């Protein structure tokens, strides 16, 4: 969830205090004068226990090679950890995530519609770390200090040689006219978007499978949101559930964009041929306000009253980047200023930003993150040897479930290239397969399973 300005301030202050106290206890910055030591230590001892605890080193085996700390165990971080060890087994890799287990968002729309079970989506960080010979630390990253190369976590600090930031996205409720943090919290609690935290998915599944009928609002955010096809796919899966349950329900799909963003022909055909009685697609529906008490969504054109809803706000890069002062707050996504080919923060070749919080405009999603991380792992391994890796494009393989029992899906695969004139990335080759069928459905599950195997098993 988006932070209020107050929260951000207090978090920054805290980190400053943390870094300073780190110096007091002699961890990082050499002391100015020995005479100051006692007073400094006394001062440090006056800090509340909870804060002093953070100033100790996190419990980890001693690094037996250059330590690479990866912040975020999503598709990018998991792939990064594995391939760093493949490209340089001497790296001491630590993967950090605040979630104790992994629940996949890709393929989760098929799970909402009961086409796979939760076991299919759920995987263990312990399995991944053991299989690929790295450490997993189940803790929350609070911030980092690039000068002394430390990551601060709720378990204490970790010294790094390289750091990879793959913390993903956060919702930006302010872009749908919900600015008050209390309202944001209420909106999140009642109508979670289902793209950040797995509890949101569980809530959504229950909602769709117990909905009694009436109007169900879904929306497509604007900007570079996570998983371009997913909101349209989710509308199909929600409609398939309602159709199967034979309830009288209308899905209002409020698209904040002027048109369907991806697989347009396929989704248009699905909306009309399969779900004509269930889905009303409303393009150019910029959400300007949401009244939680009245259950009303307002756009520039109209107000829509609903019985239940899934509100997917526009997204931004994790506020971890902002807190660390490396985010460019003028960009809509609040992304860091990084090298477009090598992914490191400009001026710091020991800190990399990948995955959905990356600065490049590649489609946010699992396959992009996986293929990108395989490449960036090569970049980091090469850097450690004083070499350079040859750039290659990430790939975006994207399946969309359209119908169920049996599961039917369509797909797209795309690559990127850098346009030297415009100095921007653009699509290189895009291959669409918009005729959905059960072969596509089978392929979508095999794809997900293959990716889980890559990240967690062998």
């Amino acid at each position: 969830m988006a932070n209020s300005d107050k929260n951000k301030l207090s978090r920054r202050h805290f980190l400053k205090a943390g870094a300073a106290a780190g110096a007091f206890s002699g961890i990082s910055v050499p002391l100015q004068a020995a005479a100051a030591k006692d007073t400094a230590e006394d001062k440090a001892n006056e800090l509340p226990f909870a804060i002093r605890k953070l100033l100790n080193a996190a419990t980890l085996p001693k690094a037996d090679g250059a330590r690479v700390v990866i912040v975020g165990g999503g598709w990018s971080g998991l792939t990064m950890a594995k391939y760093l060890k493949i490209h340089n087994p001497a790296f001491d890799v630590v993967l950090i995530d605040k979630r104790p287990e992994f629940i996949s968002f890709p393929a989760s729309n098929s799970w909402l519609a009961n086409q796979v079970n939760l076991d299919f989506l759920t995987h263990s960080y312990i399995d991944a770390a053991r299989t690929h010979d790295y450490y997993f630390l189940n803790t929350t990253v609070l911030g980092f200090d690039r000068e002394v190369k430390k990551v601060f976590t709720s378990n204490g600090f970790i010294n790094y040689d390289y750091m990879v930031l793959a913390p993903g996205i956060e919702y930006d409720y302010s872009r749908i006219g919900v600015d008050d943090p209390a309202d944001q919290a209420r909106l999140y609690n009642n109508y979670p978007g289902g793209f950040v935290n797995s509890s949101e998915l569980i809530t959504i599944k229950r909602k769709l499978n117990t909905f009694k009928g009436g109007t169900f609002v879904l929306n497509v955010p604007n900007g570079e949101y996570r998983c371009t096809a997913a909101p349209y796919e989710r509308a199909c899966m929600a409609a398939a559930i309602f159709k199967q349950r034979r309830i009288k329900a209308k899905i209002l799909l409020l698209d904040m964009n002027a048109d369907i963003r991806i697989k347009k022909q396929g989704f248009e055909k699905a909306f009309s041929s399969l779900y004509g009685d269930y889905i009303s697609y409303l393009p150019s529906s910029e959400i300007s306000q949401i009244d939680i008490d009245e259950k009303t969504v307002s756009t520039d054109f109209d107000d829509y009253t609903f019985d239940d809803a899934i509100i997917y706000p526009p997204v931004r890069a994790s506020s971890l980047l902002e807190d660390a002062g490396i985010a460019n707050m003028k960009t809509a996504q609040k992304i860091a200023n990084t090298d477009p080919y090598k992914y490191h923060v400009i001026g710091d070749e020991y800190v990399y930003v990948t995955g959905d919080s990356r600065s490049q405009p590649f489609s946010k999603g699992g396959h992009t993150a996986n293929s990108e991380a395989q490449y960036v792992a090569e970049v980091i391994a090469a850097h450690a040897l004083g070499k350079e890796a040859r750039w290659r494009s990430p790939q975006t393989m994207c399946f969309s479930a359209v119908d169920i029992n049996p599961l039917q899906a369509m797909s797209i695969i795309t690559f990127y290239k850098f346009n030297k004139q415009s100095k921007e990335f653009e699509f290189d080759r895009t291959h669409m397969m918009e005729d959905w069928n059960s072969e596509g459905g089978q392929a979508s599950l095999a794809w997900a399973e293959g990716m889980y195997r890559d990240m967690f098993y062998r």
Partner: protein
Amino acid sequence: MKSAIQYAVFVLLCLTIPNTQAVEKITIKLDFIPNIEDGQTTYGVCARCHLPEAWGNDDGTYPQLAGQHVNVLMKQLLDIRNGTRHSSLMFPFVQSRTVGGYQELSNVVAYISTLPMNPDHSRGPWQKGSEQFEQGKEIYQKHCAACHGDNGEGNNELVYPRLQGQHFQYMNQQIMRIKNGVRQVHPAMQAVVSELEPEQLEQAINYASYFAVPKEDMASSKTWRNPDFN
């Protein structure tokens, strides 16, 4: 002509006899007559990544399948299926729950063999006349040609892969996997790869990437799209 193709699938069963350490090997030979139409349907699973044309990708992530010998394709499918050839991503695609049994594998392999090849596959960095090209030629002719053929045509009967038309990066990646012991291959191939230095292997592969694909095997243009899926 295609309907006359039969595939031999060897199934190795290991039976552990209770109370003894003895393991008996049982070899079963099965023949299948492929059905190309059914193969097209099954290829709908593969085409999501390999694309309708099966032409592969210049960054080495997907090989060109079009034009490859049927026995070579079948061997790869079976090797990946039983884990002999490791591929996390491909593994679930070749399991029976996804593509079906031996009959379906035979069908899909036969279907792929009907596809015309990519007229613009990616080649290595050293063109004809360069020192590396000529060195690669020498290495290829000495170490590779006996099995893979003077022009990289391979051999279906003996299950030697056709190299003509294969993407440079794909071959390069695979040879390094073999070199590093990640991919297990025929001992003869393994021996050659162990013997040669990485630079020599790259040069040989560079040379192989320039083999001309017979015109009759190629699609009319690089913009050709497989009408079965478009």
